[in-house]
């Protein structure tokens, strides 16, 4: 299990958070998505055997809400 910490921009309400979670949940290998709306930070837990960082970042969610990887 790996963790990906992201700085997500553009969210302004709880629905935006839900949107990102919804879209990411369709991605196989994603185990958990934690988003702090106030801070604009998302922590994605995933199974590195099924999916990798790059694939996650390519998800539609991040086309809508641009995200950048944060150093752990």
């Amino acid at each position, binding site marked *: 299990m790996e963790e990906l910490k992201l700085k997500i921009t553009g969210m*302004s309400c709880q*629905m935006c958070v839900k949107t990102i979670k919804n879209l990411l949940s369709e991605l196989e290998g994603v185990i958990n998505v934690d988003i702090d709306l106030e801070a604009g930070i998302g922590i994605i837990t995933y199974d590195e055997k099924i999916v990798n960082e790059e694939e996650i970042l390519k998800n539609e969610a991040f086309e809508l809400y641009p995200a950048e990887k944060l150093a752990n």
Partner: protein
Amino acid sequence: MEVKLKISGMTCAVCVKTIEKSVSKMDGVESIVVNLLDESAVINFDPKIVNIEDIGIKIERLGYEVLGIAEEVEELPNKETELKEKLKKIIVGAVFSITLFSIMYIQIPYKPYLAFLVSIPPLIYIALPIFKAGFNSLKVKSLNMDVMYSLGMGVAYISALLVTLGLLPMNFMFYDTTIMLATLLTLGRYLEERAKGRTSEAIKKLMGLQVKNAKVIRNNEELEIPIENVIVGDTLLIRPGEKIAVDGIVFEGDSYVDESMITGEPIPNPKKKGDSVIGGTINKNGILKITAEKIGKDTVLSQIIQLVKNAQISKPDIQNLADKAVSYFIPVVFTIALISSLYWFFNGGILLAVTTFISVMVIACPCALGLATPTAITVGVGRGAELGILIKDSKVFDVAGNLKCMIFDKTGTITKGEPEVDEIISDYSKEEVLLIAGTLEKNSEHPLALAILKKADELNISLSEPEKFESITGMGITGIIKDQKVLVGNRRLMEENNISINEDYTKEISRLEENAKTVIIVAIEHRIIGIIGISDKIKENAKITVQNLREMGIESYMVTGDNEKAAKVIGKEVGILENHIFSNVLPEKKSEIVKSIKENANGYVEFIGDGINDAPALSTADVGIAVGSGTDIAIESGEVVLMNDDLKYVTGFVKLSKRVLKQIKLNLFWAFAYNSILIPVAAGALYSYNIRFEPELAAFAMTLSSITIIGLSLLLKRYDPWK
């Protein structure tokens, strides 16, 4: 292809962008415009490439719910082209009617054939849509007016065809009648639609108040951005003469703001730091900086627009009466037409029978009946909105006719709800008493404390900090100032602390209480140094309102949580009878009192209160009236919201609702009057006096009855309840 989808779940402007961005990337989608306000998306797409289901699924994947396809996309321009199209039909119809009419009266060869040929283009262009509509409603087994028109016109045209075929004599040639009927019907509808468009002008006016762009300050930079992009917490800059974009709170600047369009209050209100402002109102003279508090559909203005829209489509009971009447009306008229034409067939021949049938069918158009209530309500609700009287449910008009009791909540409704210090009795100076009381009360949020602080502020008394303080619920505050023990509170606080009140003060306290004032006693080191009388002022128009209501046959009642003495004094001052005053009523018991008044009243009961804690009472009454202070309105409770807390709006509302009810009744009267006078005439009741009702005239009379009703309803637009 353009489709409008209803979407729920969007809460912010970013949600809008998210959906737009995501859907617009789909193949085949040409454009998408999402509207947060009415929770919809208008999508233009190529049905060959993508279908609406896929688009819906895409939106649902994002986490929003697609409720379905909205009723056809309503667009104003469409309505206008429709009206123009009708007008064209009317002109063409008029030209052909005159031509056909002339053909009947001149001697030319092959007249029947010529008339037939001339009648074809207008038949297709003008009459066919009416026949189609009639046929469609027959298919769904509903006898509506289109069916009646079609029957009338159909009979006329068939008889004309029979003439052309040589089966009937020349005077049965009704080509001109058919076309003229169709033209007049179209004219009637054209006029109706135009008038209906005008009745919703109030909504358009309100919508016109909405601002499209806002000037925000972000990162110390002034930006002009579309209103949808404003978020809660943004700083907005409003210059003199500009409209305030959203609901917010002033944090910098002083200015006068014209709120007449929302509250009906004609005089601009001064606004300073900390005051609320409403979106859509106009900033008069100074520059204001505000913090956005409510945006989109949460703003007062959007809520008002929604309310007015809903009220205009809600149906009062009296409308059900009209609807029922229409459904009986058609079979009755059809029977009359059949019987009378049968009678005239045997007593005057086939020509008379046919004319009679056509006349009756056409005259008995129920459209005036159908228009009677909605036009009056649309205009009335719109007029109310203009005056700052928001009517949310048209049932208020049913109640208006037999309104017997108006129950007032005291604090905030009859009184201003803002206690003020109005008497200080002391051996010391006023300032000293206020200084001591104010220093302690500084730490309290109690309304009475606020009154003392306000007074101290007015007199420019600089308050110091107490060394210690403690508030005792229901009694007052104790503390230490400059090493001295200070008590500020009611009689009980003094008793508990064994402080005796001398005779002079006892007398003064009783006098103040008899004048409905709350008394605060100030003591230092076990000695009383003064008393403060605080009162909640009665609103200016309270007395005249009670009196005006009485003149209209409505008795006023008052319920309050205050003590009996205070309640009676206030009741007396505004003219409410003593046995109509209910004091010491806990908020949750208010609705029980309303219920008991309702049971004993020989009519309807309305409750008027300031909304929030009165909600149960508001809903128990037949009609609940919530008084708003302009910005902070309890828009959910009650059927009526008065945007201005001036009590003259209560009489204003009562008068307006009575006037609308009167209008509905008057309209129904006219609708029935036209029919009940003209149907017998059309059926031939006066043939023996040689008075005939020609079919053309019937169509004209029918149009006239609709126009009468619309015209009368529009008079409401200028109604002034205070004149």
